Structure formats: C-alpha cells, structure tokens
C-alpha cells in the first residue's frame, strides 16, 4: 500500500528524494489523480515564479547599486579593521544592534530636499540668499549655522556652476541648500543637514518625487541630498562628483 505523505509530494517536486523514493512517489501519482493534480499545480507555481522573475538576472545593474559596490569596496579595508576592533573590544552586540536600527531622520531627508528644490529652484529673482560672488562668506556663514565645517563642491567639470546658497529650517534644526545651474538654465540643489553623530554612512540611495530625482547619502554625520529634474544617470554623475569632493 502507499504510504506517501504530503511532505513526500513536496520533496518530489523539489528534487529532494533519492531515486528509490522518487519511484515510489511516481507510482503513487500514477494511481492517485488527486495527488498528481496537486503536484502538477505546485510544479506550475515553480515554473511561473521563474518565468516572472528570471528576467531580473539579465537586467543591467542600476547605477546606484553599481556605485554602492565600488564605493564600498574602497572602504572595505577600513571597515574590516573597524569591525575587528569592535570585536576585540567586545561591544559586538551593541554595535550591531545599532547598525540594524534605521536612522529615523534619514528617512525624511529626500523629501525635505525635494521640497526645498521645488520651492527655490524655479525662483527667478531670489534663487539664493548669498550669491556665488561671496562664496567664502557663504561657506563661513552656513558652516557656523550648521555648526560643522561645510565644503562647497565645485561642479564646473559637470557643467554646473554655483549660483549661491541659503539657510533653511529642517525638521531637526538648520539645513543648507546650495544651488547650481548649467548653460541651459537647468538647476540642481545640494541639500545638507546634520544627522545624529552616530548616523552610519550609507551608499547612494535614489528617490523620485513629482518629477524631481534625489540622490542622497550619509557621510561623516551629515546627510546630503542632490536634487534635480535630470535623468537619473546624469544626476548620478553629478552626485558622484559631489561625493568625491566632500570625501
């Protein structure tokens, strides 16, 4: 008599049975149309999942993800050393627990930046509070207000020239916005604000709201967000330029 359980049927579908058991299951399926129907349905599910998602394997990697690897690889050695130190100090649990908690104020960063971009980038008369002509003053002023030394990236290599910057209220204190413009009048804004000192560094992330693309990341306790109505690869190229100059 058959002693084929449901578990055997699943194991049969997933190739988990040895040859002997497989034959027994096959014999059972030949006698029991109900079991054969279920097995066929499960096999169809498997094939369907592959049909739905196998195409992802052939997709080109998104630029941000590719960049994450590159950037991470550069930091790999230092990361490994740091991890080793923490291990040695025996604070493993605390460290990883911290690593796992999401940074709450990071979540709102792309939205704040996108809103600030949408509000100020179309401004004709007063796009900035302090113009590029007074760059040294701008840098000093915003560094003082954010209570951290800021750099003003030079993006002329990517075709964008500094227009100037302004101070903005963020949810948790002040934020700085630097505005850039290219020869066609397209504008980008770089939004910077202080995050919690413990904010862990992240790779580039991308967000898209109301036609505005935002690349954002955390570095050295600061949150950066570059916003613009550019195609994603173009915006990424500028974000990389910003990141390189700030690092």
């Amino acid at each position, binding site marked *: 008599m058959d002693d084929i359980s449901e578990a055997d049927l699943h194991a049969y579908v*997933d190739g*988990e049975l040895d040859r002997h058991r497989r034959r027994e299951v096959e014999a059972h399926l030949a006698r029991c149309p109900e079991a054969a129907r279920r097995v066929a*349905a499960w096999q169809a599910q498997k094939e369907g999942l592959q049909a739905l998602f196998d*195409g992802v394997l052939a997709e080109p990697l998104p630029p941000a993800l590719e960049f994450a690897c590159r950037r991470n690889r550069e930091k790999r050695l230092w990361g490994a050393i740091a991890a080793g130190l923490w291990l040695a100090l025996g604070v493993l649990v605390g460290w990883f627990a911290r690593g796992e908690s999401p940074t709450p104020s990071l979540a709102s960063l792309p939205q704040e930046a996108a809103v600030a971009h949408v509000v100020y980038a179309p401004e004709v008369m007063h796009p900035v509070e302090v113009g590029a002509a007074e760059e040294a003053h701008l840098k000093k002023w915003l560094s003082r207000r954010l209570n951290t030394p800021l750099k003003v990236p030079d993006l002329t290599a990517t075709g964008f020239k500094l227009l100037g910057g302004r101070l903005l209220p963020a949810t948790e204190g002040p934020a700085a916005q630097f505005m850039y413009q290219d020869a066609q009048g397209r504008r980008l804004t770089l939004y910077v604000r202080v995050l919690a000192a413990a904010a862990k560094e992240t790779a580039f992330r991308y967000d898209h709201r109301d036609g505005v693309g935002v690349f954002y990341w955390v570095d050295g306790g600061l949150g950066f967000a570059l916003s613009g109505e550019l195609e994603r690869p173009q915006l990424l190229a500028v974000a990389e330029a910003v990141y390189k100059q700030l690092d």
Partner: protein
Amino acid sequence: MELGARLAEHIPRLRRYARALTGDAARADDLVQDTLERALRKLALWRPGSDLRAWLFTLMHNVYMNQVAAGRYPLEEWNGEASEGPQPGIPPASPQEEALRLRDLARGLARLPAEQREVLLLVGLEGLRYEEVAKILGIPTGTVMSRLSRARQRLQSLMEGERGLNLRRVK
C-alpha cells in the same frame, strides 16, 4: 579573487530574490543595497570557505525581516513588479491566458505572509535545498516544510479565487 568582486557576482541573484520578495524594483534594489552594506560591515565575521551565497541570503533575510517589522511593506503597496521585457520560457500556446495566470501568481505571492513567501521563493525560485533554507532562515527543516506546504496551498487557492474573478469579469 578579491572578496568585493566575489560579492558582486551574487548581486543578480540577490536582486531577483529581492524583486520577488518585495514586488517592487526600487524597494528591491534598496534591500540589495542594505544587504551589501551589511555584508561589507560584517566581512570580518564571514568564514572563508563557507558558502558566501547562503551567508548573503541570511543577511538579506535579516534586513528584510527588520523592514517588515518596521512596516515598510504595507500589503496594498506590493505592486507585483516582475522583471522587465518579454519572459523567456513561456510556451506561446496561449499567451494571453499565460499572462493572466502569471499575473494571478504575482498577486497571490503578494498576499502570502512574508515568512511563507521567503520559503516558497528560496525553494522555488532559488532552487535551494530544504536544509540550506533552514540554515538561512535559522529555523528547523520541519518548519521549512510546513511553511512551504502552507504557502503552496494558499497560493493555489488565491490563484483559483482570482481565476474565478477573471471569468466573472469576462462574462
């Protein structure tokens, strides 16, 4: 081979799994990114010679479960995004019917509890052995099998329900 390059080799499969898990291309890539970051932070903990792929899937499981717990995947936001472009391997016999069936499958997948979806995909999409899945998820093999059984059963009844709806819509 450099470890970074070896990590990079696994990205396409991590992406496929993440896409099926979250049903959303952007969220999936965020999940992959978070997983890679965690992998690079924890490289010191990885034992050379052990299965790098299984380790990466374990990390992704942990990241995903944290995100599920934090409510980052409300059910109604699962938009069933599969891969782009035409799918290879689908018999051309009745493309419309097949497309409907796949859509129902994607919808059914979305409605499974996250823990069942994980097991179903690790077995059915990744082709991992029950034992490997148990290790990745940190659960006994028996639990893998019971979740798999529930997932398949539920998926089947969800799909049959969808099919019923489709028929009624056609009438």
